């Protein structure tokens, strides 16, 4: 300790590492637990998946396990079911997200009104979103059940149906049926997001628009929608990616059947792993899912950057 200058700032003895180095090390120490978690549960498994995708690896044929290079990828490109699942994924995502958005927006506009018991209504309307996916799937499997399910019964009582319909085994009805379930589940997500956006719009803007003679419809188009644009973009993009990857509902309700009518790429990947026990091909499909997801995310980031500059 050098005490010749009697100030408060006492020069510390020189440490083995400079102050800057020590600070950097301690910065990374805070991140270490998170880094270990993600390294062990995300990054390493992804590398492992890429590695697995290069092997012929069918669990029931261990003697045939071997390196096949891009063999699984070639098989995928030539696999008509794979292309079918991509088309199904598109249908699944498009109808799920666009209708979740539409109804979520409507519910948000309603819940944004001033009325008694708003908190209770809000909670009830948001509940479908919070419950486990397998629970949603089972509830709706029961509703669609041809003999004891309430849907057929209600339609029959309303005089809209004569013969019971097997919603989940009819090739033409099964996709709409699972999409409808997903809509029920996903409406609250958009409601939450858009409601938050609506409540962030300052009242003065509406008042100014009203003074300028704008009616309720005009105010919606010229104030509400433009002000909500950033949140709409973020919510929709997140939802598209999430729905594309989401396998639980279809996996439980139909396992992608009948005849692959509801087989989307993510459930196809699961079925390859669980039913066909073809882990090499499953890994290949999951790598492709990852690539598609990364492209989406890159697009999304580009979009939101644009939005951020608009939102200020």
């Amino acid at each position, binding site marked *: 300790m050098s005490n010749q200058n009697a100030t408060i700032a006492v020069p510390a003895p020189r440490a083995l590492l400079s102050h800057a180095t020590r600070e950097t090390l301690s910065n990374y120490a805070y991140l270490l637990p998170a880094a270990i978690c993600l390294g062990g549960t995300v990054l*390493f498994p992804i590398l492992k*998946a890429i590695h697995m995708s290069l092997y012929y690896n069918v669990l029931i044929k261990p003697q045939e396990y071997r390196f096949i290079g891009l063999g699984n990828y070639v098989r995928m490109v030539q696999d008509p079911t794979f292309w079918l699942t991509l088309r199904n994924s598109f249908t699944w995502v498009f109808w799920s997200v666009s209708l979740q958005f539409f109804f979520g927006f409507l519910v948000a506009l309603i819940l944004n009104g001033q009325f008694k018991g708003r908190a209770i209504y809000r909670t009830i309307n948001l509940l479908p979103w919070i419950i486990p996916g397998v629970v949603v799937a089972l509830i709706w499997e029961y509703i669609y059940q041809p003999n004891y399910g309430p849907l057929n019964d209600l339609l029959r009582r309303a005089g809209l149906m004569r013969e019971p319909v097997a919603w989940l085994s009819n090739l033409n009805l099964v996709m709409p049926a699972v999409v409808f379930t997903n809509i029920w589940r996903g409406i609250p997500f958009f409601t939450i997001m858009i409601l938050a956006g609506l409540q962030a719009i300052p009242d003065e803007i509406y008042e100014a628009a009203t003074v300028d003679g704008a009616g309720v419809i005009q105010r919606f188009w010229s104030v509400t929608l433009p002000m909500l644009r950033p949140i709409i973009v973020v919510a929709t993009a997140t939802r598209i990616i999430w729905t594309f990857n989401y396998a639980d509902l279809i996996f439980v309700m139909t396992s992608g059947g009948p005849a692959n009518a509801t087989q989307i790429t993510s459930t196809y990947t699961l079925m390859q792993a669980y039913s066909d026990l073809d882990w090499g091909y499953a890994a290949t499909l999951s790598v492709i899912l990852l690539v598609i997801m990364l492209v989406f995310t890159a697009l999304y980031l580009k979009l939101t950057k644009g939005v951020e500059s608009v939102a200020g």
Partner: protein
Amino acid sequence: MKTRGLGDPLERFLGGPVLWGGLVLGTLFAMGPFLWVFLASVKTRVELYATPITYIPVQPTFQNYVDAWTSRLTPFSRFFANSLWVSSVTMVATIVISTLAGYALARFRFVGKNTLMLVFLATQMFPAVLLIAPLLSQWHALGLIDTYQALIYSNFSFTVPFTVWMLVGYFESIPRELEESAMIGRFGALLRIIVPLAAPGIAATAIFAFVSSWSELLFATTFTTRTDMRTLSAGLLYMVGQYEIQWGQLGAGVMISTIPVAILFIFLQKHLIRGLTAGALKG
């Protein structure tokens, strides 16, 4: 009064009958399916399979709950305990890990910070399907199949990135001056200033971690083989796959899986919603 009471007849129509009609329809649509399953869960076996089907149970009974809870083939008491344990440990560990990382990302300067934020954002969107095969072989190699650790570690793959991202936003909204004036070390500042001030945000991320672990299905079915290690989600799926569907017991199982998260949500929705939308509102 944002859009009502301003004299326009169209507006009064929208704010009156349309609003109430929409409210009733929306609520019926959201609640109807729950109500149906709840009613089914208190019906007797005979009534469940009667034609024409009944809506209000003639002889309401909680026998299905007792059966599901004590069943030896699908012991929901055990599933419930497993879910509670896995979700709670995931929640607590996630919060500790993410608070440290979130604080570092919100406050410190270092190389690669933006890249790290991007990594956290991107990993939120990784498909769980992608991780199943490699994680299974990993847990197998480490002898962790049929352990709670395998489920808890796997859950980190989706809880940690999201909570870090959320917490960074919360921490950044706290003025730096508070820490600078306190003259305590960085860790002290984190514990004594940041954590108390960001408590609502931390609560929101905690609920998120709990609820998403509670709902998790694919990891729980893949990394467990023994019935007594299954969580509620995995147990429900197992119940469907194993036997002819017993809608009464299954309905009871569905209600058992739903009620805890529904209660959590009802009491803490304000925090949760604010936490979830804060990031999106910022853009």
